[in-house]
């Protein structure tokens, strides 16, 4: 054990590099959470309660995506829940992986996966043309 002699923390200058990222991330989680109450639970109710997923088929989706309104709804849901979830997982990884390298790798994987899924989801929403 090293001795407890320390003088290094003596300082009065303001700390440097104050980025607002964590603040905004924190705030974003709250705001996106509020939107997701509408979007995610809304989506769940529409699909599982007002309709029944047993009736869910190609036609149903096609009919739904006929209006840009629902495509926007679903895209917002996609974007917000991906962002919200990704940031959530970022925190989880930060908390649980103390090895710096491992943390960097897992965070990169997370961000990559999220971006890919965002692209995929967005592409589906734009590119879908009903065959029926």
């Amino acid at each position: 054990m090293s001795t407890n002699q320390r003088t290094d923390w003596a300082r009065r200058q303001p700390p440097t590099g104050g980025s607002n990222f964590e603040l905004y991330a924190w705030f974003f989680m709250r705001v996106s959470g509020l939107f997701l109450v509408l979007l995610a639970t809304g989506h769940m109710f529409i699909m599982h309660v007002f309709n029944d997923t047993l009736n869910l088929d190609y036609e149903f989706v096609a009919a739904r995506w006929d209006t840009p309104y629902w495509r926007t709804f679903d895209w917002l849901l996609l974007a917000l829940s991906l962002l919200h979830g990704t940031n959530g997982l970022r925190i989880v990884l930060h908390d649980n992986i103390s090895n710096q390298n491992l943390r960097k790798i897992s965070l990169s994987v997370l961000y990559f996966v999220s971006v890919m899924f965002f692209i995929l989801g967005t592409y589906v929403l734009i590119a879908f043309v009903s065959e029926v």
Partner: protein
Amino acid sequence: MDITLNILRYNPDSDKRGHWEEYKLEAEPDERILDLLHKVKWFDDGSLSFRRSCAHGVCGSDAMVINGENMLACQVLVKEVSNPIKIEPIRGLPVIKDLVVDMEPFFDSYKKVLPYLINDDEPGERERLQSPEDREKFEDTTKCILCAACTTSCPVFWTADSYIGPAAIVNAHRFIYDSRDTADKQRLEILKDVNGAFRCRTAFNCTSACPRGIQVTKAIEDVKRKTLTIN
């Protein structure tokens, strides 16, 4: 009253791992847990190590996990806990021996938040004035005795020991809300860090653990909101 004490022992000189040790002893219902530890140390096993000083909950030496919760051993009476009594060192800080943990990381976090009054104005011959209402705003957080019960009860701190921890935020709050201090921006700047106040997930363990009854989570939330309004 017959008491069974189970203590998680660890001696770096001889043990590879921590292990439970059982002690049976006689105690009065209104004795403190600290008295029991003393009985063990003084009349049974002198090698048991733990910190203590004041014996009445004001110095902050003897935070430990008693029956699964952080408490000060000198502040809990035998009759208030169920028997057998299980005692472990506080979590998230490296154990030195038995119930003694390395407090340096804890104090380092404390020192990070500039825990002292900063005001470069000339104060004059007499005291700075402060109304009782302004004084009341930080009353709660002046009570902190740096016992680490809060920080080591925090589930975020267990998994992420880089988290600055509730105690440091409490002490930042003490100055941020002091009308005489002028450095709230600087402290909020520090607490905005990845390991700062926004790491708190409102688990409230800290509030239940604080032996001084400080509303720790409330203080942390105050700090978060203040950061939000300042930026």
